[in-house]
């Protein structure tokens, strides 16, 4: 739309004088910060919800429905990060206001809410989604409206969008380091792969099988999938007994997790005896709440973050998280990755000197965070994070003891050549 010089009507004259007066009042009060802020016209050329002292972002997770169990932690972490950033003075001198929407564990609802956040609320960035299905549902909306999504979950890879920053690990980062460790440290030769039946476990096991057979010289002695929500694992436990694998490589998720570990223990396959190694890529401290520490004691998990990581950043983070959300809060891998979202966005905005999505995207690769609870992370050209992978040993109290950490940062490789 083009505007030729608008006439000054009575109403707009009134509005302008009020605006001028309030601006004057504000300026006299906070003149110091106001002068430091770059002007809104300069940092926001695409009509995002940015004012002289606020900027709107969106939080889009399920707080009702089946996924609420997993996404609750992510919401808490994102809110904590936003509050901390605000306490430090915000982003480009603007306080972050968040609009929270509920995806209700329903993928079309996610798409609908994403649309609302981008079109109606004009948010500068969205922190959200958990399952791959919800991410796939909102992806076309973010691409069409040129929004920016910070996605926290470890996932199967095979995706790279200019409109998404993936703050969790993609499959190879998690799996290759885990398998290398179990092969070297435990001398494992035979592997039994077991997972829930959907894209993430299947893709992960494909990568795992290729790595085991072609790079580790090991053997896969069984590969089984179970429908989501499956609750009887006695038959597969008998198969595992018969095959006697050195390693059970598990990517079972959700309610099935609880059934799997409880039945494994009840069947007398005791992980604390170290007759075999159970290596999981799907159990974080969050899941152990439901499984029970006594049922999973002795298992190993391969991921980038554990609540017990003994570095200073993490100690401060855990303390702040508990102060904000209660002393019995637990923090899993995804929760920490969700916490990185707002910080990475802040860093990119400040580097770009602008809230414009295009400029934030340009500025993103190479952004590093030295204050991340997991240690140091850096955004790769492919929008995933360089990060270290750790092996945690599950303890009876529901925490992991970190027993190994890769020397180097693992390069994210969402389209691993030779593994597909």
């Amino acid at each position, binding site marked *: 739309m083009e505007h030729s010089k608008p006439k000054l009507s009575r109403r707009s004259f009134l509005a302008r004088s009020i605006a001028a007066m309030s601006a004057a009042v504000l300026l006299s009060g906070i003149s110091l910060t106001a002068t430091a802020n770059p002007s809104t016209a300069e940092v926001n050329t695409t009509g995002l919800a940015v004012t002289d002292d606020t900027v709107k972002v969106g939080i889009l997770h399920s*707080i009702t429905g089946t996924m609420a169990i997993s996404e609750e932690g992510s919401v808490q972490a994102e809110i904590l990060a936003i509050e901390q950033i605000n306490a430090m003075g915000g982003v480009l001198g603007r306080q972050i206001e968040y609009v929270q929407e509920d995806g209700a564990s329903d993928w079309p609802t996610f798409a609908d809410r994403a649309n609302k956040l981008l079109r109606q609320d004009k948010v500068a960035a969205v922190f959200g989604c958990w399952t791959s299905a919800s991410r796939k549902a909102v992806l076309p909306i973010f691409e069409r409206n040129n929004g920016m999504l910070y996605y926290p979950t470890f996932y199967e890879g095979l995706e790279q969008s200019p409109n998404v920053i993936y703050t969790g690990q993609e499959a190879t980062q998690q799996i290759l380091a885990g398998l290398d460790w179990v092969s070297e440290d435990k001398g494992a030769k035979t592997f039994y792969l077991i997972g829930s039946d959907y894209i993430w476990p299947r893709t992960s096991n494909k990568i795992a099988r290729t790595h085991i057979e072609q790079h580790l010289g090991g053997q896969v002695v069984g590969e089984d999938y*179970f429908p989501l929500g499956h609750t009887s694992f006695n038959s597969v436990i008998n198969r595992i*007994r*018969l095959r006697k694998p050195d390693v059970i490589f598990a990517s079972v998720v959700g309610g099935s997790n609880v059934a799997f570990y409880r039945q494994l223990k009840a069947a*007398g396959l005791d992980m604390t005896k170290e007759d075999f190694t159970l290596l999981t890529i799907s159990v974080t401290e969050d899941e*152990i709440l*439901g499984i029970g520490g006594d049922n999973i004691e002795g298992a190993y998990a391969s991921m980038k973050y554990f609540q017990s990581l003994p570095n200073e950043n993490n100690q401060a983070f855990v303390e702040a998280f508990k102060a904000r959300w209660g002393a019995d809060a637990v923090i899993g891998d995804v929760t920490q990755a969700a916490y990185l979202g707002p910080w990475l966005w802040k860093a990119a905005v400040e580097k770009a000197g602008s809230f414009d999505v295009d400029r934030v995207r340009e500025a993103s690769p190479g952004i590093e965070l030295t204050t991340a609870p997991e240690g140091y992370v850096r955004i790769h050209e492919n929008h995933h994070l360089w990060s270290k992978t750790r092996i945690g040993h599950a303890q009876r109290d529901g925490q992991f003891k970190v027993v190994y950490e890769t020397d180097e940062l693992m390069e994210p490789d969402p389209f691993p050549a030779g593994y597909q």
Partner: protein
Amino acid sequence: MFSDFSAAELTAIFAMQGFAGLILFAVFVLMALGLAIIFGQMGVINMAHGEFMILGAYVTYMTSNLFANHFPELFGSYFLFAIVLAFFAAALLGVIVEWGLIRFLYHRPLDTLLATWGLSLILQQAYRSIFGAREVGVVIPDWLMGSYQITDMIEVPINGLFVMSLAVLATVTVAVLMYRSRWGKQVRAVVQNREMAGAVGINTARVDRLTFALGCGIAGVAGSAFTMIGSTGPSSGQLYIVDTFLVVVFGGAGSLFGTVASAFSISQSQSIMEFFMGGSMAKVLTLLVVVIILMFRPQGLFSLKVRR
């Protein structure tokens, strides 16, 4: 696939596999018994059955916390109390639901389906608000968690034995109630001919309410027992509902014996196929067989012969 194993190993595996099938059988019986009573005797399609089970699971969780905090020396036996409490909690909720919702919807099966589905959503969200969205870990007493070593190779999980005895106990109790008690006679009379039963002086409304409460109570017991083998969260009930309906429909609505027979055949085929081909494929084949049999026998395996 068996060529590289010794005879002793194979015997052991088959023994344990048979046992795995029996455990699944017991789980199915416990799940389906309550629904068989409600669906079979009253014709109510109770989509909230899983949520009644989870109520039992949460009662167990609360009982375990209560014992851990106040009577730690009795912790080993809390489970028995929890099962009884779970029964009464779920039955009480059943009475309230029957009184407030179901009794207006008899003879309207599609409406009860929608109403109870809505109820299940409401209950799920209520659990989420009360107990939190995360799953809770129910601590099981040690004596229930280990396994019982029969030979070097054969180990039998104790919680499996427990679930099996509970299933037997529940089935026998229901059978005695239905076929040997005065109340059971009344229930069967109402099922066969409601008007006539009312005409001879049976309080049909009261019979309905108690039947519904009994079905829900048994669901509560099942939920309590399943804390040993499955998860306890606001939507965990959804994990069981499909299998439950499958067992009841396949067995033939209204027949207790049919439910048991159906649970047995489905669990055995499921567990044997799972051993050979993994979980997803086994499930597909089981469903396929059930569908084919139901095509030829829409009334299920066993059905009550009623003149309508």
